């Protein structure tokens, strides 16, 4: 058998595989769309900042509340900060940034 005959045989006998739902499976496994994630990140930071600001404002107008305001505001900002770090870490790992 000549080489070209062998290759012809291999091409003829190699089937074409229809998609049959394969691409659907692939698309389902893709990570959540990046734009949605960025919106979630941005929203969490904005909400945390607004909440901290509101608490600070309330603290300015009320003596009894002002004692709580600083630690509350600080706690809210701290929580927001760690949520942001957590989201960032999750997204970078999920996006395969660290994969070799």
């Amino acid at each position, binding site marked *: *058998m000549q080489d070209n005959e062998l*290759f012809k*045989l291999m091409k003829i*006998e190699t089937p074409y595989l229809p998609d049959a739902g*394969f691409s659907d499976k*692939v698309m389902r496994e893709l*990570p959540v*769309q990046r*734009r949605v994630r960025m919106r979630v990140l941005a929203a969490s930071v904005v909400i945390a900042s607004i909440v901290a600001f509101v608490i600070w404002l309330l603290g300015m107008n009320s003596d009894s509340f002002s004692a709580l305001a600083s630690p509350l505001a600080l706690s809210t900002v701290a929580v927001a900060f760690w949520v942001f770090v957590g989201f960032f870490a999750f997204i970078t790992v999920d996006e*395969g940034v660290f994969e070799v």
Partner: protein
Amino acid sequence: MRIDEQDLIERVLKDDDRHAFRQLVLHYQSGLRIFLRRMLSDIALADDCAQETWLIVYQKLASFHGGNFRSWIFTIGMRKALRLKTKEGRTDPLETDVAGSPVPEGLKLDLERALAHLSLGQRACLHLSACEEMSHEEIAEVLDLPLGTVKSHLTRGKERLKTLLSDPEARKEKDHAR
């Protein structure tokens, strides 16, 4: 189906266009899955491997800086398949030119069974050359092998495959003649 690959890739990168990515998957899915099936000899495992390959393609698309997109996908797929083979304890590196199982007596093999008797490297090189029509340089890139090794795999692989596909009587006569 002709596709404007570069345009689709740009749409995925710029707008995270999922429809564009699906077009790429549809265009290359058959070739990749068939290749992985021949490498892994297990349909379900090969399709899982192909799925994971596409996930990596999506994640790493920004690192593709032009060139041969098909070779790039196959390179990722091959690396994934080799990792799976290593996990299973099947360490038949691509460089090895060890012939697979001995030629079975009295059987004229069909193509798939004959291919299964080749070494992994020979099988990969033959498939990429014959079915994907890749050049030797492209095959060397996909399999991460020196060009000389690719050529050697192709030569020996073809010889062995021809023997395996030949009539067993003719094979016996050839063996006696040696």
